[in-house]
């Protein structure tokens, strides 16, 4: 199956992936669309560049886990681990209880902060030809390859 391969050692903290994710999920596919509903309701990235204790940046991406804690916590059935390995949220079923946010051990389930009170997470760009973050990554930190998991995190090399 198609696998997102993440090599943390190559990350330079440029945040291109964050930006690409915001653009891909904004109205009209434009950065300006991200702010259409106002600055306090701006579209959030579904991935995040975090800073570790030594001040080094690293990419924190949804792993589309084999045993996803977010799915186990979801009381509406909005979150589902699909047969293709992806963990996808159905925004129409989500009630915004944020039990998933409370449960994802990596912090990859987030409140949307937009108009609707729902969660957002990486949808693997399923309605686009290729993953926006991968296409935008200039260092080879993010790649797509073949594998048995939806995401392989922290491959070094």
């Amino acid at each position, binding site marked *: 199956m198609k696998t997102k391969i993440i090599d*943390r050692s190559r990350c330079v903290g440029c945040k291109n992936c964050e930006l690409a994710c915001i653009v891909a999920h904004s109205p009209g596919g434009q950065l300006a669309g991200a702010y259409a509903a106002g600055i306090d309701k701006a579209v959030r990235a579904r991935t995040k560049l975090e800073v570790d204790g030594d001040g080094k940046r690293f990419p924190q991406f949804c792993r589309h886990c084999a045993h996803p804690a977010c799915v186990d916590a979801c*009381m509406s059935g909005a979150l589902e681990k699909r047969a293709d390995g992806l963990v996808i949220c159905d925004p129409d079923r989500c009630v915004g209880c944020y039990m998933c946010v409370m449960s994802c051990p990596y912090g990859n389930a987030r409140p949307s902060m937009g108009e609707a009170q729902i969660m957002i997470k990486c949808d693997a760009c399923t309605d686009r030809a290729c993953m926006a973050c991968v296409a935008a990554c200039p260092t080879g930190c993010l790649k797509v390859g073949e594998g048995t998991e939806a995401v392989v995190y922290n491959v070094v090399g």
Partner: protein
Amino acid sequence: MNYVIIGGSAASTAAAREIRQRDPGGRIRLFTRDPAFYSRCQLHLLASGHRQVAQANFLPHAWAERFRIEVFHDDAVTGIDTGQQRVRTSAGREAAYDRLLIATGARTALPPVAGLAGSRTFGFRDLADAEALRAALPGGGRLVIIGAGLVGCELAAELARDGHRVSLVEMAPHPLPLQLEAETGALAASLLSAAGIDLHCQDRVARVERDAAGLPVAVHLASGTALPADLMVVAAGVKANTELATGVGITTNRGILIDRQCRTNLPAIFAAGDVTESEDVIVHQIMPSAIWPAAVRQGQVAGAVMAGDTDSLARNTGLRASVSLCGTSVVAIGPVNQATADHWTKRVYRYRNSRGHRCVKIFFTDGCRLKAAILWGEITNAGVYGEAIINGRDIHDEQIVMPDLDGARRGIAELSIR
């Protein structure tokens, strides 16, 4: 292998799925008192009418068919015959089992208050409760909710949003007493009050006054305050549905006692969810859990073990809660209330986030371990804090208890590198 599952909610359906994944040929029968599958956590949305019951189904489309589960709705198990290994149901069915799961959950506990039991007093646990309340609401009367825990607060906020006149009574000094400490508790109180809820903390319902026809007139509080009342909802605690178990010699305390494999003291009988008591990983005490994810986890373990596989509740906890109070997101993890008793260090960070929202983060540490956390207003990364608390990960004091929030945030981010 014959599997019988009692209950049609979080724990029971999780167990059924796990069994099927391991035993393709087994017969799985699920009996539930409920008329349909629905998420109890959405009852306040059903009571207000903002969601319909079909939308509250938490299972994927054609779940029973896909996993080949024989589902019997509106059919309560009335007795277990442990000698013959069979159950009887209210619809007159009998079902033999090799493995039995009791996942009967809990029900509203009615406090012993004079005049409380009677017409126009509702529990809040089942679909019938939400539908009865929904039917009674258009009268435009005054509603008194007893108990400002998670259920009471969410219901009060939901109904106040629609313009209903709601009073909320709580014995503790502030709402959500199990989840919040004094500072965030005060914030919660002002949010609820600002939403138009008539909040009475540190007070208690002394008696309910009813007229000659038995209809409620007023709720009298211990302080002497009288709240005019047409409807009352009791959300001040639950009682585990242990009756089936106690009748046949299964050991119970407040709930059915289970081990880490969800076994009861009887060999073929397992239990999971809100009906049970098990060891909580954070506080290492045997206690009930009352949250959806804990019930699901227990159901998963029970299902796996019933089907002959291994799994363990080793990392399970019920000490986690997420709630949206009138639009403000709050997460509490760990035994927030034990903090003073255990002399943990308390750090409070108050700030405005990039969107201008007022936020508070409170960490309780015992030196090298994060023990409990309250996130008010900004809950992103809540699960990372949870992971640190649940797994008791050694963290250097300065990683989490930084002099500034930014530092603490980095310390936490570091814990998510895995």
